[in-house]
């Protein structure tokens, strides 16, 4: 028996630290770019001083004021992008389908129904968020009731997850039918805000601690389950024979990704493509091992949305584009390119 020297794809802890470290730097850089860019740019020379001021809680200079204003929106973009990317990774592992995204099971469609109903009835901003959350939670509960049996281990091999997928797709289209109905009866004046909500928009998105708490808790759960997620992704139902509690893991992935999606959609509307292309790009670049993929997707998704949002508010300034349009415009070609590369 000969020994094999090369271990090319061994997920060395060092390699993981390198990747996560690099992405962490990229995340900080994206936040700084977002803080500097806008109708009035902050020069790189002013940056250190302004940053110190913001961190100390005083905004004496113009640069510091601008930075603080933009930082809130950039941080919301980051937490939303990170949550959507992580939800995508979890949904793909749950359904064992790399083409799944956080919206596929209709959670965002449910949120749209709630939010649009609130917009139609001219409710206050806080009520719109609450209605969106209510819609997302309602669809999740309905989905769980329908597919509860299929999430157990031993539920007829892969048939279980395809039942969950089908149920979700049908629920999603029912919600979209309600959305179309509301859009068609909405008065002219409210249509614009409703459409913007649907596309996903970070303008006016409130700065709140809750999305960070949700993302932090979800990340903790995901990292603790990362090894089990690898086993589930590889062995499906037979992961049970390797000591993975398949039923509990599937339920966990379902609820945590649903929570992340609901949290992201509630604060920024249904921003598309992040949950699909970021996990894909990270898998393409760093491999499918969830122990690396999970932190990489969170950091990558966050940075990507921060940059997209910066683009959305500057590209045709003073008009602000909904960021969802930018992510789709950038995301679709990248995704097609990746698919094409994979086939070669």
């Amino acid at each position, binding site marked *: 028996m000969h020994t094999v020297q090369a271990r090319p794809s061994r997920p060395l802890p060092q390699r993981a630290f390198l990747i996560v470290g690099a992405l962490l730097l990229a995340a900080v850089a994206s936040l700084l770019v977002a803080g500097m860019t806008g109708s009035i740019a902050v020069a790189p020379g002013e940056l250190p001083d302004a940053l110190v001021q913001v961190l100390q809680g005083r905004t004496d200079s113009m640069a510091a004021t601008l930075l603080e204003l933009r930082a809130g929106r950039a941080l919301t973009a980051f937490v939303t992008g990170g949550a959507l990317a992580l939800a995508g990774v979890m949904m793909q592992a749950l359904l064992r389908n790399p083409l799944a995204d956080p919206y596929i099971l209709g959670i965002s469609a449910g949120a749209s129904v709630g939010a649009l109903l609130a917009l139609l009835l001219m409710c206050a901003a806080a009520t719109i968020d609450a209605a969106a959350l209510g819609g997302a939670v309602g669809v999740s509960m309905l989905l769980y009731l329908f597919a509860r049996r299929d999430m157990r*281990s031993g539920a007829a091999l892969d048939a279980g997850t395809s039942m969950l997928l089908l149920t979700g797709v049908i629920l999603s289209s029912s919600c979209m039918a309600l959305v179309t109905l509301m859009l068609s009866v909405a008065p002219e004046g409210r249509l614009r805000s409703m459409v913007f909500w649907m596309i996903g928009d970070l303008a006016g998105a409130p700065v709140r601690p809750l999305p960070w708490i949700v993302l932090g808790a979800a990340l903790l759960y995901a990292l603790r389950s990362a090894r089990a997620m690898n086993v589930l992704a590889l062995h499906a*139902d037979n992961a049970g*024979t*390797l000591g*993975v509690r398949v039923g509990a893991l599937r339920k966990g992935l379902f609820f945590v990704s649903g929570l992340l999606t609901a949290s992201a959609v509630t604060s920024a509307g249904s921003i598309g493509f992040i949950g699909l292309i970021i996990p894909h790009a990270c898998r393409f670049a760093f491999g499918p091992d969830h*122990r690396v993929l999970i932190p990489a997707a969170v950091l990558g998704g966050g940075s990507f949305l921060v940059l997209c949002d910066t683009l959305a508010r500057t590209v045709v300034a003073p008009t602000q584009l909904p960021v969802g349009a930018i992510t789709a415009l950038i995301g679709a070609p990248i995704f097609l390119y990746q698919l094409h590369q994979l086939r070669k």
Partner: protein
Amino acid sequence: MSTHDTQMSIRTRQLELRAADRILVQGLDWEVGRGECWSIIGRNGAGKSTLLRTLAGLRAPEGGAVEIDGMPVTAWKLEDLARRRAYLAQSRHDAFAYSVIETVLSARHPYHGKRYWEGNDDHAAAMQALAAMEVDHLAARDVRTLSGGERQRVAIAALLAQDTPLLLLDEPANALDLAHQVQVMGLLARLCRQQHKTVIMIGHDLTLAHRISSHALLLTGDGRWTAGPVADAMQPARLSDTLGHPIDTIEHGGRRIFIPRETNHD
């Protein structure tokens, strides 16, 4: 652990298996001891895979119980059980681009406890298993690019890396070329005889099964079953009855060869 190893046994009590309303196996009282190598033989749909999945604890029986080391399989902690028995599924579907070595390392999951990364011992076990299946040169390859036979050998390597005293294999010779069929079967026989592992496998090659197995379980698919040492269980008359086709045997070089009798196609 060592006391467990000497007691390794799997036993069924009044086991009953059904598919829809059809009774596949009824009243199966069966005991498999340490170091025994069993072949499960039967027609398509006779309940062989259903039985193996039930033994693995992946599905609940319709009646009776399965015990491993004297404890009901349902009472085991999954992680402890994963260090006692390994299961090779009949087929697999790879959705993600995991590499071969990652696939085999995933079989070390039950040994990791709370650790985040594998240790060097896991890598050593994985590489050794890959070498035993002659697929160590594929370690870095994407599993989705492998041929059917290569993928099967990688799956068996993962089973070996799991390093359990009990191995349950659903058609291990599936998709393997002739040379590798013989090699894999020889390896399983050696595991039983030299390392006293217990093997229960499903196979359709009677000659190969007869050569390497110590025992055989025949399932008729209507509830009836026969279990015993190959010399008793693998009588041509019994096999003909079980498989629903007349079977002849010839002796060649000290080996018994099973051949299906020709039927007229006129």
